[in-house]
């Protein structure tokens, strides 16, 4: 039960952090987008030869999906650290 709680708390913390961070980065251009703009200046005639094959989220949903990814990462991290720490005393003895 404790492992689930640790993973859940980690996920919630990451979710809150990413949502707050998303608010402050909403009007900021990402470096990936900036690099695409530079590429467009260097070769204005170049057109991407393939479109994204997977899910293409709406800009408003994108932040939520990034938050979900961060939450999954934090949950996995919290769970793994909790299990690793629980394992340590047994190994020492």
């Amino acid at each position, binding site marked *: 039960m404790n492992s689930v709680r640790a993973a859940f708390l980690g996920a919630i913390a990451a979710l809150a952090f990413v949502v707050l961070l998303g608010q402050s*980065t909403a009007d900021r251009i990402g470096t990936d987008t900036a690099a695409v703009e530079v590429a467009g200046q*260097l070769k204005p005639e170049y057109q991407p030869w393939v479109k994204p094959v997977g899910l293409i989220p709406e800009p408003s949903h994108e932040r939520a999906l990034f938050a979900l990814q961060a939450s999954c990462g934090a949950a996995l991290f919290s769970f793994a650290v909790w299990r690793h720490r629980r394992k340590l005393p047994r190994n020492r003895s």
Partner: protein
Amino acid sequence: MHIAEGYLPLAHCVLWSAASLPFVIDSTQQLGETPVRSRRFELAATGGLLLLLTALKIPSVAGSSSHPTGVALAAILFGPRAVPGLAMVVLLLQALLLAHGGITTLGANLFSLGVCGPFAAWLIYRAAIRLGAKPAWACGVAAALSSLAVYSATSLQLAMAYPDPVSGVLGSAGKFGAVFAWTQIPVAITEGF
């Protein structure tokens, strides 16, 4: 550092995929070996950290945003050869679910995030330890500089695809590097801490 889908010519996609493939095969073998498998919770923690950090868009002083890379810790704990497999899972998830990066540019993104970053982190960490730095400091410096190594590799990849008509590949690399540097240097320092 995610090069968007379709933004590299086909020949470059093939080249970078071919360059990354041996590292991915080697990494999957490494991850399956007993020394790594016996530390599966540490491995899961570094994988979780990689997922978490690559999703964070951190605002920078330049009025833009970027994300940390998070590969240094995995490279220091498990060696750089174990990281490309982890990085591929993260990049594949982002390409398919977030339209961030791409399938055609997976090889190039994997080479910068999964190969250049971890090997740079490991070499810098080992050098810092040999010079007498404390492990925490060595780890911080390796994380910060490996983050810059990832973005330098991406700049070079983009410059090879989009050479400057006047100054060539190096001039173009400087332009892409300048775009990344203003944002990534503060983010890299933060990642180091």
